[in-house]
């Protein structure tokens, strides 16, 4: 990286977005605790600087669960130190493509889809058949 670029990095201001988002998270988390209604905060459209993002990560911290997904590129999901507050971050070609705070029981992306399960069951059955077939052939000889 050239020095010119480095200097623009240093100039990135802290805009106070992190605090604002924490307040919004608190409101949504309180609502979720009371009603069970999940919600999402999309950090993508906000003109957050890297410093803002770091400040937000610091404040929310990391909790008990973390997962890495490998679906058309890498994704990270972790529960923050506040139960029910999740961070979902999808990585794109050159950086973060989507950055979300999900206030929910478990982010939707972690759970398997039943229609995928249907295909999976078929595949598993096929695998089993193949295994038994191979085993039987082995037994006969």
């Amino acid at each position, binding site marked *: 990286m050239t020095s010119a670029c480095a*200097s623009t990095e240093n100039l990135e201001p802290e805009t106070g977005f992190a605090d604002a988002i924490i307040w919004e998270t608190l409101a949504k988390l309180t609502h979720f605790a009371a009603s069970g209604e999940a919600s999402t905060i999309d950090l993508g459209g906000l003109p957050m600087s890297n410093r803002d993002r770091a400040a937000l990560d610091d404040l929310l911290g990391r909790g008990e669960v973390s997962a890495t997904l490998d679906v058309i590129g890498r994704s990270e999901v972790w529960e923050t130190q506040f139960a029910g507050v999740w961070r979902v971050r999808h990585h*794109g*070609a*050159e950086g973060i*493509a989507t950055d979300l705070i999900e206030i929910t029981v478990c982010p939707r992306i972690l759970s398997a889809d039943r229609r*995928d399960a249907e295909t999976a069951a078929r595949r598993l059955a096929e695998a089993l058949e193949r295994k038994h077939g191979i085993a039987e052939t082995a037994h006969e000889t």
Partner: protein
Amino acid sequence: MKHDDTLAAELERRGVSRRAFLKFGSYIASIMALPPSSVEALAEGLAAARRQSVIWLSFQECTGCTESFTRSFAPTIENLIFDFISLDYHHTLMAVSGEAAEEARKEAMAANKGKYIVVVDGSVPIKDGGVYSAIAGVTNKQMLEDTLKDAFAVVAVGTCASFGGIPKANPNPTGAVAVSELVGGKPLINISGCPPIAEAMTGALSYLLSFGKIPELDHLGRPKAFFGETIHDRCYRRPFYERGLFADGFDDHGARQGYCLYKVGCKGPVTYNACATMKWNGGVSFPIQSGHGCLGCSEPNFWDQGGFYRPLPTPLGAMGPALAGAAVAGAALGVGAALSARRHQKTYLASLEKEKE
């Protein structure tokens, strides 16, 4: 069993689960500022959609738009869109050429009658019967008209297709016009920019695929999600503008401090695009962050706004001769008026003298 040709089935055959749609849906919702609640609808819409036939027509253009749209080849979320479309004709990218290429276009048109999307980059020359640009002996105007007849929608990619762009700049020798002037009643989305931001294209196409309709557009036919706000409004240098801190040149103290580039001709305040938030090259930077003012490339006639380095508040065109002429004319009128007043005065005094006598 009937072959399942939905996008979900296609990805599944490649061992990719529906999580991909969810992920892509949240990506599209994020870049288009759709409510997070629309993610599932987007994902479901895409999963149930079929591969979209796209016919890409390149007219008076520089291929920069194609470059912008295709420059990333890693299998990532941003270009999953390439798995969702079937690019049936694109004379720069397709393997075949000549007769075979034109045949592919006609085949795709026949097979997807009323369902295919026409993407156009470049403006269309219409002067002298459109002779200034032709492909396979067919003028651009003719090819556009033929291809549009059975199209579902048109996407004008880039400022040339959206507004005429550089070919239409003064004196416009080829009579170049924007695609909008030739589409008749077909639904049209303009994705302007020179080049346009690839995400804007991805977003608009995905929306079209998921919901089967055109996203909300501004008065120039551009998706509001990407062209709803000015560069200036979302610029990280905006606070410097408000505080009156400006760069006066490209190598002065202000420039080094990263001050606002308004004085060196930045067109950010009147340019609607998503550069300031989406940035370029995967979020690395955008022109203002790299130290150059916005050229206003996503706006109509950006080439003829008096110069890229001319500050926004300055008048267009040369004022000197007009004002000098006005000054001379004013002085002549003034002298005439004064002389006439003097003559009146003289006659009046003479009449007074006469009365006295």
